[in-house]
């Protein structure tokens, strides 16, 4: 067998046991120092919102790490939640509060899918013990995508991620090891880079009731007359590959949606489902990539759920259906406050949310509600 220590870089001074001893100590010291530095960096910068530190502006965070503490500290305690993706984040909670008398919180989070609806609801009920009476769920056509992974935030042991069905145990260990990951380190360094470059951090802000303000999109709209066309083109570039892969409704996501309604039924929470609107130009651009076929399937699935659970389902996918001004779109899917108000009013009106008394939802398939939170 060949010896591993075959020679030295300096044949005149062969390594002594003391050299080897120093090597081991130096290797361990340098390794531990580097790992410690990486862990400290990721803890302090906290780019994914996993830890309590808030030292560096969280430029890379999504909406989830913001909205979770906002909901926890909302006063008065919300009794109504708006769930959905960034396409519902501009829906004004005040409109719903005004119509229903229920303090409302907008818990819309970007790229939300049914697993998000489920964990958001679980978080509100199980962790915050909110006395919820109403859920307004805005579903996107791609929310039931059968080849898109859950949002990374849900795959981490975050407040919401821990509530995902099938999450592994030992999440504290995962929180620790995540400090030593390349992905977290890259995010931390990018965060710091943005801070040092002085990039504006107010692209998107949230009010205490979860309402989002799309400052960056608004600034872009004001800067260019043909901004909408350009933004739709950019979104088409992003959405086409998603629709190319989207070849059917995800059974897992339908199950998550079903579980969400089960939980709501078990807590006597009224639910309104609606399909979110999109700009017709964007829809046309996605038609060759299967948009219409998926939209038909999603509508059918939501209608079936609506019948099963006796909850209203509102098809608001066409802005004309609620007289939404197409000029209110920033980019084909996100919209300004006026458009948001029109949409909110349509949900309130067609969902009969201002009617009293309010009835909890029921399941026409017996026996599911009893297992809602198991």
């Amino acid at each position, binding site marked *: 067998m060949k010896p591993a220590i075959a020679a030295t870089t300096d044949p005149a001074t062969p390594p002594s046991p*003391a050299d080897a001893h120093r090597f*081991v100590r130096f*290797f361990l010291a340098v390794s531990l120092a580097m790992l410690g530095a990486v862990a400290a960096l990721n803890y302090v910068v906290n780019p994914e919102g996993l830890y309590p530190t808030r030292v560096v502006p969280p430029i890379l965070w999504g909406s989830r790490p913001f909205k979770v503490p906002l909901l926890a500290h909302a006063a008065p305690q919300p009794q109504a939640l708006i769930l959905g993706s960034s396409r519902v984040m501009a829906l004004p909670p005040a409109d719903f509060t005004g119509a229903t008398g229920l303090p409302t919180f907008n818990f819309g989070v970007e790229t939300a899918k049914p697993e998000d609806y489920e964990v958001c609801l679980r978080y509100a009920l199980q962790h915050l013990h909110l006395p919820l009476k109403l859920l307004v769920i805005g579903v996107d056509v791609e929310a039931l995508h059968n080849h898109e992974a859950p949002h990374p935030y849900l795959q981490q042991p975050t407040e919401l991620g821990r509530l995902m069905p099938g999450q592994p145990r030992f999440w504290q260990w995962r929180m620790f090891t995540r400090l030593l990951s*390349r992905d977290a380190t890259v995010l931390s360094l990018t965060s710091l880079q943005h801070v040092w470059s002085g990039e504006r951090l107010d692209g998107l802000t949230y009010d205490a009731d979860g309402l989002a303000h799309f400052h960056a999109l608004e600034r872009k709209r004001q800067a260019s007359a043909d901004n909408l066309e350009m933004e739709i083109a950019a979104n088409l570039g992003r959405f086409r590959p998603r629709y190319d892969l989207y070849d059917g409704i995800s059974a897992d996501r339908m199950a998550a949606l079903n579980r969400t309604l089960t939980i709501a039924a078990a807590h006597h929470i009224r639910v309104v489902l609606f399909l979110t609107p999109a700009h017709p130009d964007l829809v046309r651009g996605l038609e060759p990539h299967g948009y219409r076929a998926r939209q038909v399937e999603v509508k059918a699935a939501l209608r079936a759920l609506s019948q099963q659970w006796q909850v209203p389902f509102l098809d608001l996918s066409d802005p004309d259906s609620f007289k939404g001004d197409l000029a209110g779109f920033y980019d084909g899917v996100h919209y300004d406050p006026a458009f948001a108000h029109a949409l909110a009013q349509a949900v309130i009106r067609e969902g009969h949310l201002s009617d009293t008394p309010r009835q909890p939802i029921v399941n026409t398939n017996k026996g599911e509600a009893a297992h809602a939170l198991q």
Partner: protein
Amino acid sequence: MLFNSFPFVLVFLPLTLSGWWLLRSTPLRLVFLTLASYVFYAWWDWRFVPLMIASTTVDYIAGDRIAAADRRHTKMRWLAGSLTFNLAILGFFKYYDFFASSVNATAGAMGAATLLPILQIILPIGISFYTFNSMSYTIDIYRGRVRPAASVLHFSAFVAMFPHLVAGPIVRYSDIEHQFAALKQRLSSDEAAQGIYFFVIGLGKKLLLADRLASPANAYFAGSFGHGLLPSWLGVLGYTFQLYFDFSGYSDMAVGLAHLLGIQFPQNFNSPYKALDISDFWRRWHMSLSTWLRDYLFFPLGGSRGSQLETIRNLTITMFLGGLWHGASWTFVVWGLYHGALLAGHSILRDKGWVPRSAWFARALTLFSVVVGWVFFRAATLQDVVTILAGMAGSHGLGSAGVFPSAYLGSLGVAAGLAFFAPNSWEIHFAPRRRWAVTLALVFVGSVLVFESGGPFLYFQF
């Protein structure tokens, strides 16, 4: 448990090394190492620990009886019992479903009903390695080349020893016997330095090279990039280097971990892609398996002592079984036969003196033959093999290299440069100096940071 995982590096390894070096009595240390190795194994699936214990017990008793027996046929009977037991568990867990589905397919083709049930048996990880370790023990005692283990503790520690347990190298008892007989009482700095060196180099090979090649190569073999000439060659070459750096990385880690226990393992890879001919390749690739097959299969069959025809027969049988050892699939069988044919062809040409004179040409020809072989090894079905080989021959057009990420092409270039031109981990002149400490610490930290995205070792499945 994977070597490239946080539980192993942050918990298991420090605890095991502490226990091993703090304990002073040899029996206690061997018990501790065996139990720690069972925990290491049970981390994957505890249900298969009893199987390993059963294999250990049977072979220990058989070895003892073989050594104690006076009469040759008694020795032979115990040896046959040991081999039958090991081959039976290997055959059942690894090959039963393959055998049953092949029988059913044949019956189906003849219009008959399904004959054998498919049991969907879970393959116990590392079974191919530890059964070969154990079989070499009883065979070597039978041949009088090794004495029976001093105690069942020695033997169980040898079989279960976590550094080589799940993916080799295939260690023989003769490699370990004298080291267990005189266990070191303290870890010397030299040994620790060597252990760190090998472990970190192996970690880097696996996580910083092999895993960078894995996703695009997998995507190619899944058919995502088409089968044009360029994607086919780039995909197959990616797998060629992925496999080498993955498996040789694992072997280096095993060698390093053994050093940290004060034990030396044999070399398992010696720059196989620098081989001058196919026979040379097998002296350099997975050396512990090649020598195992040579000593326990090829030589007993007659080796190359008989006629050329007999040599060809022996090579073909050996490589056929070597292929089957890798997995229960026709692709592995054909891969083994392909290498048997290459070795036989090389033997004939060498006898006639028809060998390339240019070393570069010889290397290129050998590498080409090996790369073609990896298509059989990696493809899911023989139909896929035909499609991929046709793609490599250009029958599906040129295709585009642009389907691969540029980072993949960069990793491929680095991997090729290292495999063809750099000294391997056993040839590098490692000196325990600060410069090395910083370099290895950087590789170690870089590897730890990608633990989350690292996959299992390719040879775990065998």
